[in-house]
């Protein structure tokens, strides 16, 4: 792929000018003709402005490292000595237990057992809070992925990132407050459901990402845009800022007329905010996504430039840069974890591709003093069975699995909850997806029972009528 030869560099002068002109949402909202505000902003006072949380909390933002396809917990973070002893034994009928082919070692002062598949992450053992009692609803990918992201697998509901953004707003109006890098699966996973569209995730594509399932759809880009920039069309060859501003003003007036006709239909008041965001993104995104400003040591830390880790390394570094710039919720996806077969090779490959980048991210956040107020979350939509599928694979298991958190006020070097002795079912500290959502919101200072949105006469929550905060995991 061409790196930069054909690319017309956006001129710095213009970008500087845009920066000096724009003061985020407020500027746009008030700078229109007649000082008109957009429909959405009149409906909700400045929907993206930073808001006070319900309670004081350490975490200001979330980076969710989403392992699409369900990684095996018993081969990575859930050490099961009993499983090793009972390798090959019959299990509940004709299934056969399968010991992990990988060794677990104790790491850090806390002595957390982590498998040799994650040597890099293991160095941060004292920062990890392992949630061994995770439990999902359905061992089928599509439904479980939807539930993980929205709480519901039946109806279209807002995603957790949208709820977080709705609850807290964002401090940088020139970037989306919720970004999802290389999403796989259905778009509803980062959709805003019945929340205003301004809260939905903005997908960002980075090539060389986590492979199928995590890579999402790749499109053939316009021939003028052959770069590794994850966002295309950040500059027009035709219209400058002043013209675009006029266009936005016109659009705003047209949309206002339309909203008036629409009787408050939630489906109507949507596109304007996306244009305002897009307009603002033009000023800042080119800088944020330009990894070229990072020094070599940092790039190496993330495994960028190395075969195997380059793709996910770039995604993780991008996540840090977005976090630094004030993005509230960042999701980064890596696919390929559905190891029904060839697990010894496949799982090792997948772990190899993400271990160094994740370790790099944790180290980088730490040295910038950002780990304290950034909640890093790792995990898939469910786990895998302790018994074998074939001779070299594991089947889906929603009954018990491990996710982990780091930073953002959670206890480090800590194991919370457990599965039974083989790792099949969560038995202690059981955390279902609603609990997990409630706990995640709690870490951001949001009370999941108070974070509601009235849609068609009913107050909805991310956790519906469920969910308990597991406050023991917080320091």
């Amino acid at each position, binding site marked *: 792929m061409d790196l930069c030869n054909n690319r017309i560099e956006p001129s710095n002068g213009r970008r500087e000018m845009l920066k000096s002109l724009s003061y985020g949402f407020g500027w746009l909202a008030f700078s229109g003709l007649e000082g008109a505000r957009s429909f959405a902003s009149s409906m909700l006072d400045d929907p993206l402005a930073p808001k006070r949380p319900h309670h004081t909390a350490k975490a200001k933002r979330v980076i969710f490292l989403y392992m699409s396809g369900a990684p095996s917990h018993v081969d990575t973070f859930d050490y099961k000595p009993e499983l090793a002893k009972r390798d090959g034994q019959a299990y509940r009928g004709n299934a056969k237990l399968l010991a992990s082919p990988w060794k677990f070692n104790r790491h850090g002062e806390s002595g957390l057992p982590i498998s040799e598949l994650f040597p890099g992450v293991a160095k941060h053992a004292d920062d990890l809070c392992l949630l061994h009692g995770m439990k999902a609803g359905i061992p089928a990918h599509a439904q479980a992925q939807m*539930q993980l992201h929205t709480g519901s697998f039946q109806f279209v509901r807002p995603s957790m990132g949208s709820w977080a953004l709705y609850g807290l707003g964002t401090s940088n109006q020139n970037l989306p407050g919720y970004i999802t890098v290389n999403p796989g699966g259905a778009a509803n996973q980062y959709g805003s459901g019945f929340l205003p569209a301004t809260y939905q995730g903005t997908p960002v594509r980075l090539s060389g990402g986590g492979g199928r399932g995590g890579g999402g759809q790749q499109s053939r880009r316009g021939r003028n845009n052959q770069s590794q920039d994850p966002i295309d069309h950040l500059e027009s060859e035709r219209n400058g800022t002043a013209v675009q501003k006029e266009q936005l003003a016109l659009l705003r007036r047209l949309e206002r007329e339309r909203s008036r006709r629409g009787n408050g239909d939630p489906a109507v008041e949507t596109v304007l905010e996306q244009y305002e965001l897009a307009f603002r993104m033009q000023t800042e995104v080119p800088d944020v996504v330009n990894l070229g400003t990072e020094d070599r040591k940092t790039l190496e830390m993330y495994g960028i430039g190395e075969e195997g880790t380059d793709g996910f390394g770039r995604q993780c570094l991008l996540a840090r840069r977005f976090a630094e710039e004030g993005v509230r919720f960042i999701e980064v996806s890596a696919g390929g974890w559905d190891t029904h077969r060839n697990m010894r090779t496949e799982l090792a490959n997948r772990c190899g591709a993400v271990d160094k980048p994740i370790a790099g991210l944790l180290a980088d956040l730490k040295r910038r003093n950002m780990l304290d107020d950034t909640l890093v979350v790792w995990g898939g939509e469910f786990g895998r069975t302790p018994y074998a599928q074939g001779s070299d694979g594991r089947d889906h298991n929603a009954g018990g699995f491990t996710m982990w958190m780091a930073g953002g006020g959670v206890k480090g070097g800590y194991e919370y*909850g457990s599965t039974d002795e083989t790792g099949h079912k969560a038995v202690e500290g059981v955390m279902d997806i609603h609990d997990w959502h409630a706990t995640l919101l709690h870490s951001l200072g949001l009370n999941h029972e108070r974070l509601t949105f009235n849609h068609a006469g009913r107050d909805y929550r991310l956790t519906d009528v469920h969910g308990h905060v597991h406050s023991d995991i917080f320091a």
Partner: protein
Amino acid sequence: MLNQVPRMLHAPQGGPMIFSLLVISTLTGISLAQDAGMMSDDSMMAGESMMAEEPSFSRKDLDFFESKIRPLLLGRCVNCHSNDGSRINAGLRVDTRMQLLIGGDSGPAIIPGDPDASLLIQAVRYDDPGLEMPPRGRLTRDEIKLLEDWVSMGAPMPAPREKVENPGTEHRWTTQEIEQGRNHWAYVPVVPPKPPAISDPSWPRENLDRYVLADLDAQGLTPVGDAEPNHWLRRVTFDLTGLPPTPAELAKFDSDDSPRARQIVVDGLLATNAFGERWGRHWLDVARYAESSGKENNVAYPHAWRYRDWVINSFNEDLPYDRFLTSQLAGDLLSAKDDDEEARNLIATGYLALGTKSHNVQGNAQFQFDLIDEQIDTITQGMLATTVACARCHDHKFDPIPQRDYYALAGIFASTETRFGTFEGPGNRNAGQLIEIPAGANLPDGSIFPSAARSLIIAARDRAENQLAAAEEIRAEMRSAGIRNPRTARDLLTPAQQQILQRARNAEGSRNIADSILNRFDSTGRPTIDNFVCMGAVEGKIRNVPFLERGELENPGNAIPRGFVQVLNSDWTTDVPQSESGRLELADWIANEKNPLTSRVWANRIWAHLFGKGIVTSCDNFGLSGQSPSNPALLDHLAARLVELDWSSKSLIREIVLSRSYALASDWDRRRAAVDPDETSIWRMPKRRLEAESIRDAMLVAGGLLEIEPPTGSAASGLEGAVRENVLDRFLGLTAAEYADHRSVYLPVVRGGVPEALAVFDFPEPNFVRGTRDKTNVATQALYLMNSAEITRMADAMANRVLAREEDPKSQVELAFRIAFGRTPSAGEFIACRDFLREFRSAWTSDQQERMASLTPTQRRQQARRENASRRNRNDASATALSDADLMAFSALCQTLFQSAEFRTLD
């Protein structure tokens, strides 16, 4: 290894889990409890304790429950009274008989044998003003009677499945369970439902309206009112053709007050070629149509476009849907009256050949089984909304489909030779043949090969020839030295010689690929008879395949006789003959009015395309993990109608778009939304975003750029071999111009290289069956519409067109609105546009000054060069005209109209 792990344990705090599947499953009598991780311990115990007391009921009584009561409970009670995600009101769950006997906060819900004493019955009778169930919309008298009868009978209800023997992995569906599984709503025969009683007999226009209104009546809802005529016209024109109505069509409809006006419009639209282009594309989503293999090596399928054209033509000719399916499954086995028909039948089987494949996988058997799996997955999801491929490695986890059924189907495709073409070579260990099209067929030869690429191909061939010759020289030398196998003699070769032999290994494949292209196109680039081929399937060596334990080739069991999916089998199922693959029988089994799924699935897909979502929202999954129909009677009415109409898709579509329901306004209403927030009932037409193709096509139309004549072939049909991204871009760079302004359905769909204009608006990943598309609205789309040169090009064209036609500003803005939105602007809108045009010039000037000020002298020169180049790329008329500030202003106005929500939304 660690022996002991320090643990810090904490009391469990798990909240209640959602087990919707469980609800569905217990209500259908198929407990899914034993599937790993499916069930909480609570529910497991409830199930077990219930087992002890469960009386046994007669088959007849259970049938009564299945056919009459279960749909009622599912439709009217489950939402608020089950483990289902929404809620468990008053502690009452209706998932099992035991739960009903225990009841909720107010005590037992039923007293078997005593309807009058049963709370459930009192509640549905609305006897007690404090206890009226369901709260929104009383049951009909018949429905209440059914519940009373049921309680009188002792409330027969099937027990959840017997205690779990094997909660591990390998549950096997028993014959009894499969038998019971036939009671699932989607597997029971389609019986045309009785037209229901309705509140307003004057409302329906078509019979289907009665079912819509009856549902609204039951919810206590009323329709919002009819859409404005121009909204209806825009809606139906986009829905049937994917294109906007022209200003002339709008004017004509506006002036025609006759009662037949709508029929005339609809019949006219159904008769256009654009109809097939629109509805054919819907099927191509389901058929995961693409022009390359995807996966690691992405091998080109340069003949796939013939299947695309066949699908489009089939819709235009209204090929009956049963015949449409049969042709795709077994067209090669159908008799044909002439070469033309035979050719079409053969091309239809391309459906089986154009799925994703790992061409480089080692081992032909593995490749074959993966190919078969992809075929089974595509067919069963696409035609039956059933995920049979889940049963490759184990029995299906949710639906009563044993693994055995999978291998029965697999045998049919193992006895089929799939002809997908491609050559062995680098990145491809599994090549295949193609099918020659009968010479007398009246079909195009194919696309023109770009002359600029021809010399590259010749050079590639010569290079490969040279490499092969050099290698042959070395081998000849070795032979003369008495060495037969060069590998044993590596030490005797110089590194250079080894490299030559190494290169030659790939050279043969490269030469074959180059030769194929040079044979398919003559020296002027025109297609030759070698291009008169298609992808597809023919009969192969007839065999049954072994049951593969855990789906593994290393674990073959007994051969499984070819056959179908048992839970769907019935008296109409025919056996597979010994000497044939069974594809024809499979086709007959699927494309059969007695198959309970086929007509339901297609009617539901049609409905989903016209109403934004299906009656069953999970269009590709009618199984137990899918959704239940929001209006079962409506679905069955449509399914039965489809068969009555001799499977004519056009006729069914015609009935739907002429219905009162389809003509509903799209006005949102707070009061109705409060009752039905998820809009499961049809009280309005939802506002729908256009699909990617329509957004692009509508901009082409607005600019007067659209070439309505279909192109011949595809921009990608000159490709061969592995398609790397740079190859694709370069090649399409040579052919794109020729194809650019045809309808979007004709853009090349190479896997991993979907054209940006489509990908940005949620074009489905062409690797899987995709009956529903995402409809996102994200900032990256806004950036595309703001800054892409392609958008500016179309806006320029529209501006040129409008300014050439109208003189005064008012008429210009009016025409622009008619073109973009199918209506005239309001006074406020006109003023907004006028203000914009007035302000434009100073904004433009200020931008130019800013831009020039920020450039270095070199950049300024580059800028000038770029502007000249882009001017050259446009046609001459616009190039000169574009210097005109008025035109620039109007183009920016048109672009803003493209950007508006209204442009991409159907009211």
